[in-house]
């Protein structure tokens, strides 16, 4: 059988992100996928030489348009560790709450995109209807819809008052009930299951050896979640990583559905234990030292490496994003799949190319 190369992306109706794959196909079977990335490289890491370490929080937040808050949080945590800043507990709890809201809206966005990739347009619209309710809470508490802008070195910029907290918890009940309705369709419907069950199976060993992170890793049965490191307020909250053992596209979808309810539970726990006090400390001086910070984004573990030499600009800044870690697994599952399954498989790792290329 003659081999043909079919280009997939960088602009593709299913994918919102510019990843390009050269698919080597034999008949309708994909034999090999060759990725090429670099379409939206912005040189953000180099900007540490131009912007001072406090201004750089804004740039760190803009590395990604979906998990922006956790990028800013990871950066601030790294600088705070280098500078030994005593961040108030209330700031840690508020960061946890906003981080989980960020996970909620990211997973709901992914569910919508997945429904769209399956051709299930009405489910796509319902997923985004629920996401809009989450975005309204985020906008009212932080001032932004996806770029929160509330995290700063030394704490947070805004507080959530008791009245606003009560309103949020009430709205959260409605959101949870809406999410139950839509996740039921994702997990039970025949048309969804037909497209996802047994498609793109990644065994536990393969997922671990290829260095997968986040829901892609947990769907293969590895119970690893960076929130277990106990950063921010996670060391005081009770949760278990959501895992599945099948390792197929359906398992990856089920993990994300499970994480929606886990995030709602974590937000409730954080509000119940929210301590009083300040939300930020005064920051003086410049950082001097080196630190590696790891946090759990909606897509998986993100690693920040910061090196400072006592001046107002950092010396070195490097990010390892979850999509970069999940790309080898994507190439593995694409080998031998049907051409029609490629969009679904690419979406199951929840690719965020703007993060990856920075």
């Amino acid at each position: 059988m003659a081999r043909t190369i079919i280009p997939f992306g960088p602009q593709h109706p299913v994918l919102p992100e510019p990843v390009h794959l050269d698919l080597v196909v034999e008949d309708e079977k994909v034999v090999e996928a060759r990725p090429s990335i670099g379409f939206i490289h912005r040189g953000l890491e180099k900007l540490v030489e131009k912007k001072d370490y406090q201004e750089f929080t804004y740039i760190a937040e803009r590395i990604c348009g979906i998990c922006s808050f956790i990028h800013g949080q990871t950066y601030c945590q790294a600088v705070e560790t280098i500078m030994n800043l005593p961040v108030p507990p209330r700031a840690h709890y508020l960061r946890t709450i906003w981080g989980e809201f960020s996970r909620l809206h990211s997973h709901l966005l992914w569910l919508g995109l997945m429904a769209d990739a399956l051709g299930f347009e009405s489910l796509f619209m319902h997923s985004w209807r629920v996401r809009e309710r989450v975005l309204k809470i985020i906008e009212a508490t932080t001032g932004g819809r996806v770029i929160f802008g509330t995290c700063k070195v030394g704490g947070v910029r805004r507080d959530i008052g008791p009245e606003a907290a009560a309103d949020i918890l009430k709205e959260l009940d409605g959101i949870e009930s809406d999410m139950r309705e839509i996740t039921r369709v994702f997990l039970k419907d025949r048309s969804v299951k037909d497209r996802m069950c047994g498609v793109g199976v990644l065994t536990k060993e393969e997922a671990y050896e290829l260095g997968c992170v986040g829901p892609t890793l947990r769907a293969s049965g590895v119970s690893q979640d960076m929130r277990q490191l106990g950063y921010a307020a996670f060391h005081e909250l009770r949760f278990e990583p959501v895992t599945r053992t099948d390792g197929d596209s359906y398992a990856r979808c089920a993990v994300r559905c499970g994480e929606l309810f886990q995030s709602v539970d974590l937000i409730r726990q954080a509000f119940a234990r929210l301590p009083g006090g300040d939300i930020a400390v005064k920051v003086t001086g410049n950082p001097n030292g080196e630190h590696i910070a790891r946090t759990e984004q909606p897509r998986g573990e993100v690693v920040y490496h910061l090196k400072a030499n006592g001046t107002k600009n950092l010396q070195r800044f490097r990010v390892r994003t979850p999509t970069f870690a999940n790309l080898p697994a994507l190439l593995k599952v694409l080998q031998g799949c049907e051409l029609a399954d490629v969009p679904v498989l690419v979406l199951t790792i929840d690719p965020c190319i703007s993060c990856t290329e920075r």
Partner: protein
Amino acid sequence: MGYFTLTRLALKWALSKPVTTRYPFEPRQPVPGSRGELAFTKESCVYCNICAKKCPTGALVVNRAGKRWAIDRLLCIQCGCCVESCPKKSLSLTPSHGTIAITKDREWF
């Protein structure tokens, strides 16, 4: 395995009011607390230049001698850094997104 699992949800929403609005015929109501357009109060400003120094994008320009303050709306990212640093509380962020910038000129006050 379920069949027609979306039917209940589809029927419920077929009989309910849509969640979407008929924008731009129905204007979007700004969410209270949203970070929108930067507003400047000329009367209380002492032209100390702190806002321009703190602005991470360099969107603000202060002319101390001429007692004038300017903003490049296309550069402003509505972060609120200047609002926090203003000693006279002359700056504030309105929840409304304001008018669209149509020129690259700075807006002088």
